[in-house]
């Protein structure tokens, strides 16, 4: 870009830094909202994906009457081999620790994925991992021992974990330990990974073999979350739209006021023989510069906002969306350029003699 053009442009921006900052600020608000929406949407989808992966299962079997499933019945399920790729079992229950009722989940911890952990996996009987939310609630620390109501043997916390899900409020234990602690003769649920093409056949076989067992596709859980996600996204979209409209109005007013202030300058440029394109270049470049500045700051602010929203609403962070950056830059500069275009066009249509006369 021409050095002299940049020289005069810089002088103009420095002279009107207040207006420049106001314009950038309006762009920043819009870009912040859009970046936050984009990042949360993309990140929440990833979280759902992670959860599905973490299960490794796409089907959940429980007893329709709510009783535990005996080991024999589990073997019956596993024997219905058609399409079943993997089987695991889990137990669920609660214990009382002091004044608090705490959820206990028993599973094969060695196969668990998608968990951040401080400490070591519990292996021996009486060892457990405590979720971060549980630790916050009860003030539990690593290595602490707690005696459940009605028991003599303490539970030792060997690890503190964070999965970013509701499980962070529970104790996780090896399956056998949990069964003993909860006094269960069987398991609460059987998790299967079934070939999706064979699901129908499997369900029919299971119904024939053990009619009291109820199947639920894990996808159904995901679908429920998807519906929730869709509603949250719609809400964010509506909020962002309101912010976008108000920002565009604010920016339009700021740009319009700036051009009105400078209409004498535009008239002077015309009297000095500036080509219309040269005048456009000055004003649109100033607007684009404000848009770029607002976009960069807005992207950073939007990424922070996305983390805050995800932590507050969904219990876990979302990854920073690098792909949101070009979107932010394009949106910000486009908004700034478009809102500058209308007032500049109006000013350019005014007869130079009139503005130089002070009209």
């Amino acid at each position: 870009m021409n050095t002299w053009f940049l020289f005069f442009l810089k002088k103009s921006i420095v002279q009107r830094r207040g207006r420049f900052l106001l314009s950038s600020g309006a762009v920043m608000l819009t870009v912040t909202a859009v970046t936050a929406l984009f990042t949360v949407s993309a990140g929440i989808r990833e979280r759902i994906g992670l959860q599905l992966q973490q299960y490794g299962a796409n089907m959940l079997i429980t007893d329709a009457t709510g009783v535990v499933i005996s080991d024999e019945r589990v073997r019956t399920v596993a024997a219905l081999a058609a399409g079943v790729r993997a089987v695991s079992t889990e137990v669920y229950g609660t214990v009382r620790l002091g004044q608090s009722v705490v959820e206990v989940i028993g599973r094969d911890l060695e196969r668990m994925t998608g968990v951040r952990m401080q400490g070591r996996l519990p292996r021996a009987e009486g060892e457990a991992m405590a979720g971060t939310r549980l630790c916050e609630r009860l003030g539990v620390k690593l290595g602490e021992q707690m005696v459940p109501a009605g028991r003599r043997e303490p539970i030792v916390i060997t690890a503190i974990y964070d999965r970013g899900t509701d499980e962070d409020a529970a104790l996780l234990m090896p399956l056998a330990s949990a069964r003993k602690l909860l006094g269960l003769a069987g398991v609460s649920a059987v998790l299967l990974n079934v070939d999706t093409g064979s699901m129908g056949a499997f369900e029919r076989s299971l119904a024939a073999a053990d009619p009291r067992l109820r199947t639920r596709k894990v996808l159904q859980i995901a679908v429920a979350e998807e519906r929730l996600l869709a509603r949250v996204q719609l809400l964010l979209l509506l909020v962002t739209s309101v912010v976008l409209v108000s920002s565009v109005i604010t920016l339009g007013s700021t740009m319009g006021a700036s051009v009105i202030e400078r209409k004498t300058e535009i008239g002077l440029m015309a009297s000095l023989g500036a080509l219309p394109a040269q005048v456009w270049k000055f004003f649109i470049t100033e607007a684009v510069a404000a848009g770029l500045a607002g976009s960069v700051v807005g992207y950073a602010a939007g990424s922070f906002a996305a983390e805050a929203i995800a932590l507050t609403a969904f219990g876990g962070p979302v990854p920073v969306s690098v792909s949101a950056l070009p979107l932010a830059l394009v949106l910000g500069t486009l908004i700034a350029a478009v809102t500058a275009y209308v007032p500049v066009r109006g000013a350019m249509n005014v007869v130079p003699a009139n503005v130089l006369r002070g009209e």
Partner: protein
Amino acid sequence: MSFIFLQGVSKDYGTAQALRGVDCSIGRGEWVSIMGPSGSGKSTLLNIIGGLDRPSAGTITVDGADINAMKGEELARFRRNSVGFIFQQSHLIPYLTAAENVMLAQYFHSLPDRAEAVEALAKVGLGHRLDHRPSQLSGGEQQRVCIARAMINNPGILLADEPTGNLDRANTRTVLDLIRDIHRQDGYTIIVVTHDPEVSRWADRSLFMEDGRIVTDEPICR
């Protein structure tokens, strides 16, 4: 053929008529003053000659070119290459220094040249005020910067609208001396709008306007 030729030039602003069928010819290198009461159409005529406004009717040719037929870029080039304006309020850019204000005119013409700008300002006696902003200059000094800016691209025509209207006697004299030097040394064609008979007497010829018409057109005898 006249350097500047106007035939039947009229200008309407809604129901008001600022110019009514003005005919006039101005030779190359002439210094013409246009006098008349407020609202007589003096500034309107000047702006139309300079391409800052367009007539409602009539023709204007400058050095053979029909100004009225020019549009957009062509008109901008005419202003850039052929005309230098001096305004009553000077209209300097407040955030640029004296030298930068002159260089802005160069920027729209071709390329800024600080050395040339410095020379132009020295010629108007402001070689020591190059880096001062308009707010740091007196009214007379601002007007001299305006003159330097108007001449920097060697346009050949200088149009001045009440150039001394805001100045005291001493500065008026200084500015008129400068314009006279430009006229004599560089052969500019100069048109000055003024309501001051003293200013008018510096010109070669005086037009008196009233109610949108040229009423008298007389040489100035000195």
